């Protein structure tokens, strides 16, 4: 069964925490990965691969640059399920 946006956000926050040490509660939908969370492109790719694995979705490399905010990523994963 497909996960809700809230569930995807919670799962994604755990992945971000594991990769960067950023507290899960800081990973909010309106946050920018780069500007607010200070996540660099290599960490972002690691998060993407772990998200693909966790949620069973495919996030094309060319799509990663469009995932500016946490909401972008959560929406993409939710729709791709």
């Amino acid at each position, binding site marked *: 069964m497909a996960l809700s946006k809230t569930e995807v956000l919670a799962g994604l926050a755990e992945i971000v925490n594991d990769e960067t040490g950023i507290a899960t509660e800081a990973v909010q939908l309106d946050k920018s990965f780069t500007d607010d969370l200070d996540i*660099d*492109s*290599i960490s*972002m*790719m*690691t998060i*993407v*691969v772990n998200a693909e694995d966790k949620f069973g979705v495919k996030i094309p*490399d060319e799509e*990663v640059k469009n995932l500016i905010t946490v909401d972008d990523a959560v929406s993409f994963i939710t729709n791709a399920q």
Partner: protein
Amino acid sequence: MSQPTLNQYTPVKFSRIYSLGAARGDLTVTNDDIAGPIDSSDEWIRQRTGIITRRRASESLSLMDMAVSASLEAIQNAGIDASEIGAVLFSTITHPHQTPSAAALLADKIGANPAPAFDISAACAGYCYGIAQADALVRSGMAQYVLVVGGEKLSDFIDPTDRTISFLLGDGAGAAIVGPSETPGISPTVWGSDGSHWDAVGMTASLLELRDGTAAWPTLRQEGLTVFKWAVWEMVKVAKKALEVAGITADDLSALVTHQANIRIIDELAKQLAVPDHVVIARDIIYTGNTSAASVPLAMHALLKSGEVKSGGLALEIGFGAGLAFGAQVVVLP
């Protein structure tokens, strides 16, 4: 009249690496030295690559000079005479002549003439490709000793304003002598290629475009994130397969010697591979930079020289890069 029976080579059972040799560029280039044209900083480069300095060769130090130096050290440490070398394999992408090969000139310069000699074009996987071929040549009985060299003068093919790869790159050469052994010293190689990502790492233009005036001097470029993803998650599968076919587990290793592409790739690969704490992870990139085909032998040579690993231990070596091409094997440290 009956047809005569042909002679064929008499195989030997096992092979091993006898020795290594190393030569690095004579210049130490700091991050501050190169940060300006890419609008970057020492901190940014360290954080994203792990590199503090890279070694580059001055104008007067050629790729061949470094290859000769590394080869002579390996020959001396192997305790053989250069005339006993039965093949010279030179892995490089920066030999500045389409033909003849760098290997033939190297063979002559080190006293191995008339050994068969040829270049290998497998970029950062090239040294592991060379070890695979040397292992096969020795075990088949085709050559008693094989010289494998991975060498690059990448600084001839960089663009100071390129933010994708140029700032990572260094110059150097690593050499190994492979020969017959009474016990297994080189595991089966897991190697391959994926030309569907042919454009992921390579040159900005072809020589024909340069000739026609439609392109400037070709330099190296990469699609960094695509390569990072492949280098970690696909290479983890290759590394696991290499351990499996070697008949060992990561717990049996003394060292993990990956291509020194980027510290983030090295560390993530080690993490995904779940190597135990006692396994020494080669991080020669920090002070040498990424030297493509030279990086695996240079890193292994450094670990042995510093005493961080001992002769006789097992090392998983894995090279990966442009092609895309990859090769991995477990070796007994010389």
